[in-house]
């Protein structure tokens, strides 16, 4: 599946919660089911890891992104949304394959690309 507007919309952006009220959110919980369109997220994640090879470490990425996250179903989404909001507010953004994303957003995609989060 090519990375395109629709897949990004479904995958990396919407599924990560990405502050789009009213969007059809994909399932997200701490059992590894994260994206409706994992391939789009994987593509973004692959690009991100190519740009930041020093972050190619799933344990460290997971620790950084999910540390302190609540365990109940549905709450993880809010946790990631909050981290994305904080990133944007702090100017912690990255450009990945042209997309301007919160760093946490890109790291979540990197986790998918590393197989550490599975759709």
């Amino acid at each position, binding site marked *: 599946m090519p990375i395109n507007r629709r897949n990004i919309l479904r995958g990396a952006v919407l599924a990560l919660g990405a502050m789009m009220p009213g969007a059809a959110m994909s399932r997200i919980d701490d059992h590894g089911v994260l994206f409706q369109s994992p391939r789009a997220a994987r593509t973004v994640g692959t690009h991100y890891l190519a740009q930041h090879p020093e972050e190619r470490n799933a344990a460290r990425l997971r620790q950084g992104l999910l540390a302190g996250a609540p365990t109940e179903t549905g709450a993880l989404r809010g946790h990631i949304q909050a981290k994305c909001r904080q990133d944007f507010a702090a100017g912690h953004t990255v*450009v990945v394959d042209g997309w301007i994303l919160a760093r946490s957003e890109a790291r979540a995609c990197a986790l998918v690309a590393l197989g550490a989060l599975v759709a």
Partner: protein
Amino acid sequence: MIEDFREQADAANLDCDLCIIGAGAAGVSIAREFLGSAISVCLVESGGLDFEAETQALYEGESVGLSYPDLDIPRLRYFGGSTNHWSSQCAPLDALDMAPRSWVADSGWPIERAVLEPFYDRAHTACDLGENLYGEALIKALGLAPPAIDPAKLRNYVWQYRTRPNLGHAPLRFGAFYREALEKAVNIRVLLHANVTDIRTNNEANRVEHVAIAALDGPAGRIRARQVVLACGGIENARIMLLSDKIEPNGLGNRHDLVGRYFLEHITGFGGRMVTADSTPLQENYNYHQNTKFWFGLALSEALQGSAEVANCAALLQYVPNMESGVGALRRMWADIREGEVPDDLGQEVLRVIKDLDGASTAIWQRLAGKAPRVANPAEILLDIRSEQVPNRDSRVMLADDVDGLGLRRTRLDWRMGEQDRRTMEVMGRTLGEEFGRLGLGRVRLEDWLLATDGSWTGDVVESSHHMGTTRMATMPQRGVVDEHCRVHGVENLHVAGSSVFPTGGHVNPTLTIVALALRLADTLKDNLARA
């Protein structure tokens, strides 16, 4: 009165107080200021009252720099000039546009922005626009509540258009609109089909003695005037000065090799696309308002321009209707009907409207209510980026070797852009992405060209047919062709009107500023002529 030079033998040698060369936005605006006065004015126009291919061909030239449209395409050579095809999109320059900016080489006007404010008021009247009101004051007056963008990064920005109820944009054609007033004026003589072939000075090259004119395959003559204004547009002004080389071998006013240099454009390109789950908050604000009278977009803040060391830049959001939507079908059909054509694929288009009756009827209601129709579920939201170009001495207008129908050397254009121009547009795109992300409005994907630093990006942007900078304004003759009063340095009775005097051009369409400066020059000329 309006006369055809080809049929006016007595016009072969004409004396007047003021000779204005070029009947476009600038020339007509200056001439109007002398209506009913004791000053005799000759307004010299190369073309007739309507488009003529033979005259238009005098604009043909060659381009040796970046890709540029054929030079007879972006401008029009007949009464009213290029206002015969402009869109009437207007906004004034910002204060920072005219200030010296340490990060923009060769920036800074010799006059402050505040000087132009009263002339912008008058220019609004001349362009038959509404009140001279922009920025946050206008947004408040429109009752808009735009998203809380960070003012340290972005500004809300509004352009104005001339519109007519239920017709949308109705650009003012200066020739047609002001023809009757000029026709009735006893002190103003509009000379059609009179091409300026030389501006001849005395031997010291400090005073214009006459303006040589000729018709295509017709008579030639001379106009002697106390004051002369060159108002032929950003390319032709430079060309005529370079062609006037009988006394000054490098061209009139060109002792410092500045005439034709610093050719500027406004650079535009689709710099990115946006995805959002709900475009309503964007469309309710960043869109047309009051039936396309106002167009609301965003611009870089002055603070960010300084900290990022980039030029001025704006962006508009373009909501691309879904091909199958009723609104899209209505828009296409309306566009065809306005052009006097039967819509392509009429049956299918009507079917699309019927299938999407809800969306189509909502769009019609919005239109009748004076709102720009919103696009339901747009196929795409494009970032339409419009940028200032930074001055570049090597971007220039020169004379070509071949000649036009009058035997005059044609224009050779060498348009250049630089890395700072790309970076300006990149900063605009990135900042939009960061702000829209922060506000939860969506995500932006930048186009590859916007991030390309190898120079290849220049093929992905286009010019705006805004020709500026070739007779730039500066206090010192070493830095500019005209002084702060638009007088050619060293030539006491020659002035230049039009965007060729802009040292920098901001990101806005130039016509409003062209008219404001022309009205200011008219006041100067009134003083000069009264004193003499």
